[in-house]
Every structure is written in C-alpha cells, then in structure tokens.
C-alpha cells in the first residue's frame, strides 16, 4: 500500500453545454487497493466513470495508466488498454439469453483474427479457464436469465476480468444484492485485490464501504472534496465531505407543533429492519435524510399507498390510514411529489396546465367533462404562486428549465389542500434559486398540514426543515430539532455508526 499509483487522473474537466459537471478532478488508484468513490446524486461520479471507461470524451486534463498516457476514444479501447468497468445495471454486463460460457468469452467473439465459425468446445474450454481463475462456481451451461442477480453480477465481473485488467471499476455493484449475496461479491473483490488489481469502487452503502475501503475519495459538485487514506479511515469525515454544509445559507427558525396529523406505529419496510414510529404535526416541516438506498423512497411510497408495509399502523388526523393505492391516498388527503420527475411526474405530451391538473380531474369536472375554465384558472394561480417562469400555462414542459419543471410538479400537488404533503428529493436537478423558491413556498404554506421531505443532501434539510430525522438501513436512527444541531452526531448517524450496523 502507498505504492506508486497505477492509474492517475489529473485535472479532469467536463462540461455539457453551459453546465460544468467536472471541475478539475484528480484521483489516484493503487495496485492491490480498493479506492471507494463517494458522492451524492449529481456530484459527477458517473460522468467521471464514463470518461475513464471511454464512453465520454474528456474536456480537459490528463489520465495515465502505468506511467503511459491513457486516452481511450471508445469503451473497447479502454478495455484493451486494461481499464474495465462493470456498470451499475447488471443486465448491461451480460447477455441474458446466452449461457454462462458464451457470456464469459463474449468479447472474443468479434474483432479481427477471430474464426468465423462458433466453436462451442473451444468457448467452453476458454470459459472454464476464466471461471477457474476467478474461483467462480457457476454451471457454465446455465442460461444467464436463469441465474440470480448475484450470480449474474459475478459473471459480469468475471467477464470483465477475462481481459486481465490493471484497473477495475465497479459502479454500485451491490445496489440490487442481498447482504448474503454481497458477501460473496466482497470475497471476490478480496481475491482481486490480492492479485494486485487497482479497484475503484463506487457505492453509497456504508456497510460496503466499511468492509472494503482502503482509501475513500469524496466528491461534491464536480470536485474532489476530500481524500481519506489514514487508517483507521474517517468515515464520518468522508460523509461530511460529500454532504456536509458548504456555507451557511438561510437559517430556519424551527417551529414546534402541538397538533399531530400523521402518526406511524411500528412500520416495517423490509424484513429484518427495525420498525419505524414517528409523529408529524400540523404546520411543521420535517426532513428525512440519509444516504441513497437506505429506504427513504420506500418510506415515502409506503405513506402514499404505492407500497405495502410489512407491519405497522398509521393514522391520519385521528382516523386509521392504510391506503392501498395512490388514488386512496390522494382521496385521504396525502399527496406525494415523487422523485425523478422525468420518470414519475411529468407527462411529456401535456402542457403546464394539463400537468398541474392531472391528479384532480375528478374535482375539476362535472359529469366527467373537464371544466377547462377552472383548470386554466388553477394553473394560472399556481404559476403565479410558485413563480414559474413561462410564457403561458399552455407552454410545453420541455420548454422549461429543470427548476421550473420541478416547480410545476410541486405546483401540481399544491393546487389542492393536503393533510400530509410528502416530497421525495424535491431539489434533485434544481438550480439554487428555484430550490430556495420551493423551500420558501413550502414553509410559507405549511400551516394546517404536515410536510415531509426526503432529501439526501444535508444542506437541503437544514435549509427547509423544523425537524430532521435520519434514516439508515431502512429505519429511522436519529431525530434532531433544527436549532443548534449537533452536526457531528447527525453525520455519525448518517454514516451508520457501529451501534446501528447490527440492525
């Protein structure tokens, strides 16, 4: 350890149009070490990976591999040079309809000097050699579509390792694996580490990071915000570098609420997770924070009736609340601004007005016929309320900036009075001014309802919430009133200290 870097990235920059995604990144990878790359959504991790693996062209900066200049123009070139990437989506790394042996040798099926005829015996022989080297105990004749996700992941990695790379990049490899399956993956990574491969491991899971990391590099807003290689590793420091406060923006005057709106008792999201109990009061804004994949969206969807809890009860304004669908939740007065607006929110074929009215057609129509005058008046009012920048309520959604699109999504659900207003990552892909507008609007209109935000970035929680709850491993592990917060304790909870890792 501490040897000279096998792979070096220096001053890497990348912009998409006006938008600078990477602002001069420098990273080193060492042989026989696992370097963990941490960063929130939009920090630039995937852009960095795509440049290294030859998918994107870099804007500026240099890369070198074993002392030589490394500038792949295509993914194939990067692989030939010895830098191999296993992407997050497991099924991108394997061909589901072919057997394991063919998958392991897939990259030898094309290119110059390859025989025209497909020789199954030779393929199986070569595949066996690859599998043995990796200690892979999977039937080579099995079809990949019949394998579990973990086995597919193993095949994808083994396939990557068939190139005998110097550098292996793993992009969130455990995001869809169970913990037992992840253990098998870790054993494989240990083996590769012993073989002297330099590994770049991208993950949000603190338990993975604690298990594997030799070094941690934290990224934030397109730059490296911290490098940690002193043993023992400073995990909280790494989380802080990735999420912590940049500058003090707006302070929130925390309010208290006496009148409970939503109470949740013993709600369990996944088997083995500790149950969640919480109370949300009228007029207060509560933020739930935690790393990606700790169950924030699962909790949001459970409260909105899209997902069923394993156990537990909920009451809304004193009445039992157990929505079986989004429709029932809406009828009961619980609204959700879902995360990832392009996927879950925006109807691309609709203009602003039609997007805003979407959930409330029934309330805006008589005998099934939409009352367009009311629809238009509602849209105009909401455009005004949230300060959506557009020419008119008839504008296409694609004509709006990301911030304004998000405002439309929030405006949609603020068009009617909510009892429980849930927003999942409402500031994702939103510029700072739109983010402040939305946060201010949420606070100003909070009276009479309970408002619950799910955010990964701590800043967003600190700027908007009266109370902050911390999630880790599918449950709530901490609660803070947003006034003189003990930031260290909060970060320790986010990082999932040893106290909680047993859960």
């Amino acid at each position, binding site marked *: 350890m501490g040897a000279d870097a096998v792979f070096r990235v220096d001053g890497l920059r990348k912009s998409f149009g006006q938008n600078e995604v990477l602002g001069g990144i420098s990273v080193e990878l060492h042989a026989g070490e696992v370097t963990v790359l941490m960063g929130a959504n939009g920090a630039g991790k995937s852009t960095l990976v795509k440049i290294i693996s030859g998918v994107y062209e870099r804007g500026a900066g240099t890369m070198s591999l074993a002392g030589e200049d490394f500038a792949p123009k295509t993914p194939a070139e990067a692989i030939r040079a010895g830098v191999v990437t296993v992407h997050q989506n497991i099924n991108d790394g394997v061909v589901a309809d072919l057997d394991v042996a063919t998958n392991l040798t897939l990259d030898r099926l094309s290119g110059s000097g390859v025989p025209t005829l497909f020789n199954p015996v030779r393929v199986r022989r070569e595949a066996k050699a690859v599998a043995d080297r990796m200690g892979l105990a999977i039937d080579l004749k099995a079809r990949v579509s019949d394998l579990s996700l973990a086995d597919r992941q193993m095949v994808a990695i083994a396939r990557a390792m068939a190139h005998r790379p110097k550098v292996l990049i793993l992009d969130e490899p455990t995001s869809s694996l169970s913990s037992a399956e992840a253990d098998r993956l870790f054993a494989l990574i240990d083996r590769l580490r012993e073989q002297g491969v330099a590994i770049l491991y991208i993950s949000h899971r603190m338990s993975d990071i604690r298990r594997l990391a030799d070094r941690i590099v934290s990224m934030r807003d397109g730059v490296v915000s911290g490098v940690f290689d002193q043993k023992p590793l400073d995990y909280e420091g790494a989380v802080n570098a990735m999420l912590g406060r940049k500058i003090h923006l707006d302070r929130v005057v925390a309010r208290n609420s006496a009148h409970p709106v939503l109470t949740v008792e013993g709600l369990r999201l996944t088997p083995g997770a500790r149950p969640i109990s919480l109370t949300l009061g009228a007029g207060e804004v509560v933020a739930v924070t935690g790393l990606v994949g700790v169950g924030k969206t699962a909790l949001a969807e459970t409260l909105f009736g899209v997902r069923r809890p394993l156990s537990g009860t909920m009451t809304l304004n004193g009445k039992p609340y157990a929505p079986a669908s989004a*429709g029932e939740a809406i009828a009961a007065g619980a609204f959700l601004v879902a995360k990832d607006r392009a996927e879950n929110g925006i*109807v691309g074929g609709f203009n602003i007005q039609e997007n805003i009215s979407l*959930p409330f057609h029934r309330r805006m129509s008589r005998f099934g016929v939409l009352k367009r005058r009311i629809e238009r008046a509602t849209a105009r009012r909401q455009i005004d309320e949230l300060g959506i920048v557009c020419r008119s309520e008839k504008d296409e959604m694609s004509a709006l900036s990301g911030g304004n699109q998000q405002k439309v999504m929030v405006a949609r659900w603020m068009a009617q009075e909510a009892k429980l207003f849930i927003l999942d990552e409402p500031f994702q892909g939103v510029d700072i001014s739109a983010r402040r507008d939305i946060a201010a609007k949420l606070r100003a209109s909070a009276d009479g309802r309970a408002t619950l935000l799910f955010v990964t970035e701590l800043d967003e929680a600190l700027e908007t919430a009266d109370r902050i709850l911390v999630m880790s491993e599918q449950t709530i592990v901490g609660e803070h009133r947003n006034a003189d917060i003990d930031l260290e304790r909060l970060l320790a909870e986010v990082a999932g200290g040893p106290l909680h890792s047993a859960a």
Partner: protein
Amino acid sequence: MMLRDHAIRYGFIVLLFGLIAYFAIAADGFVSPQSAVFIFQSVAITGVLALGVTATLVVGGFDLSIGSVATSAMMAASYVMVVLEQNAVVAVIACLLIGVLVGLINGWLIVYMRVPDLLATLGMMFLLVGLQRIPTEGRSIATGMTMPDGSVANGKFGDAFLALGRHRFDFFIPNLIPVSVVVLLVLAVLIWFFLEYTRFGRMMYAVGSNERAAELAGAPVKAYKIWAYVISGVFASIGGILLAARLGRGDIASGNNLLLDAVAAALIGYAVLGAAKPNAFGTAVGAVFVGVLLQGLTMMNAPYYTQDFVKGVVLVVALVFTFALSGRGKR
C-alpha cells in the same frame, strides 16, 4: 422557425385540399355531392375501425385484431339471422357483445398476462380469423345455404338490418346520405368529445404518455388500458355490423383490407394539425384523405393494384411529418 411550424401544422391539410383541387380539375365529376358522399361511404367502415384503434393508440397500445373483430361480427350477424333465424336487434346485440368480449380479453392479455400489445392482438387476430369459420366449416353464410349437417338455413337478413347498409337519408338532395356515413360522423364526434373533453379521455392520454406519472396521480391505469381495448373492440364490431348490412350476407372473403386501411388512417391522423399524437379529429381526416385519394385515382382510371402502393406512400410521408419534422416523436 415559423415556416417550419406552419409546415408541420397545416402541411397535411394543405396537401388534402391540394389533392381535392387536383382531382377536381383532372377528373370529371369529382366535385359533386354524390362523389363526396361516395368518398365518405367508401371510408365509413374503415373510419369507424380507425376511431376505435385510436383509443388504444392513445393509451400507448395498439390493436391489430380490429379487422378480424369486424369480420367476426359480420359472420356472427349473418349466423344469428340466417341460421338461428333471429331478428336484427338480436344480431346487433350479438355483434356488440363480441366486440366487448374480445376487447376485454385483449386488455386482460396485455395488462395482466403482460403479453406485448402487438403480439397479443396479433394472436387474437389469428384466433378470430379461424374461429369465425368454424360454425359453417369455412363456408360463407347466405339464405338457402346448406349447413354442414345437411339441413338448409332458411333465415334471412331482416329489413331493419339491411336498412343499416342501404337506407339513405335526404339531405337537400333526396336519398343522399347513407346510414353508414351518419354512424361514422356520430361516432367520430363521440370519441372526439370523449378524448378531448372528458377526464377519462385526458387520463388516457396521460397513461399513454407517462404511465408511472398517471399511476402516481391516482389513476387506475390498468382499468384505463382495458377500457381502451373494449372501445376498440366495440367500434370494430360496429364496423362489422355495417359491413354485414352492406353485403347482405356473411362473406368470408371480405374485409381483408380493413385492418391496414384503418391503421393507416389513424397513423396519418398523427400528422394532422401537427398533433404528433393519436387524435380522433386527425383519424377522421386521415380516413377522408385515403378516401379522396382512392376515389380520385379510380376516377382517373388508375389500375386497382396501384392503390395499396399509393396508400403506403401517403402513410410513410405522414409518419415522416410526425416524427422527423416535429421532433416530438422522440420522447
């Protein structure tokens, strides 16, 4: 790009009027009430089917079984009246039931069995093509036919039923407008109003554009999809009733072109007024467009076998209008 916007928006309408103007000059007698009525009559049945398939296109699906639903309905109407010796009302009800049932099965296959829409309805098409021939062992149905068991079918098409195909309403000129054209216009207005002005139609568009968003907005997405196929099935069976009434018998060789013509009309409709999405008005215009083209070509003595080719060209041009020029199809 104002010019381009106008080209996308009005291009197809201009093309339609240009075509009419051309035929008016080139073909004698093209511009007359009778000729206009004939155009509408020739596209009435495909138009009804096209309006139905528009509903499935709106929810992001497709229905390839419409042609065979129509011919099955035609055969069923003939069987009910000729073999079972029932009256017109029973025949019409039987046809509509077939439409509803096929729509429900299509919807069930697509929504619950997760069969891709094209494949599910393609399978249904084959199934119906075969099924409609089983009761008569592949023979056409007409009064006096011999049944497989040797008996003679003595029932006949009721007058009320035949009137659906042959009666003409007075409209300034006596005996001008056939029932089928009236049915087409009524259904066109109905589906247009349903899709554009009711909350159900609006939500169907939402389902077609972003299913997940519609679901998170509280819509019963599965039900909407199944309803779309029921609408399509019912419209197709109405088309079949009109076909049976026009022919006056159950002809197993008829209706071969229904599917392709109807789909062409609906897809041409995407280009009308730059909608870039399935819409009832566009579908109606698309059907008329095809009718004008065929009537004009026929009057100019173009050979019959060129017609399919010309239809194909028009469809391809319309699709280029929709997807390449407007750039909205990419989403």
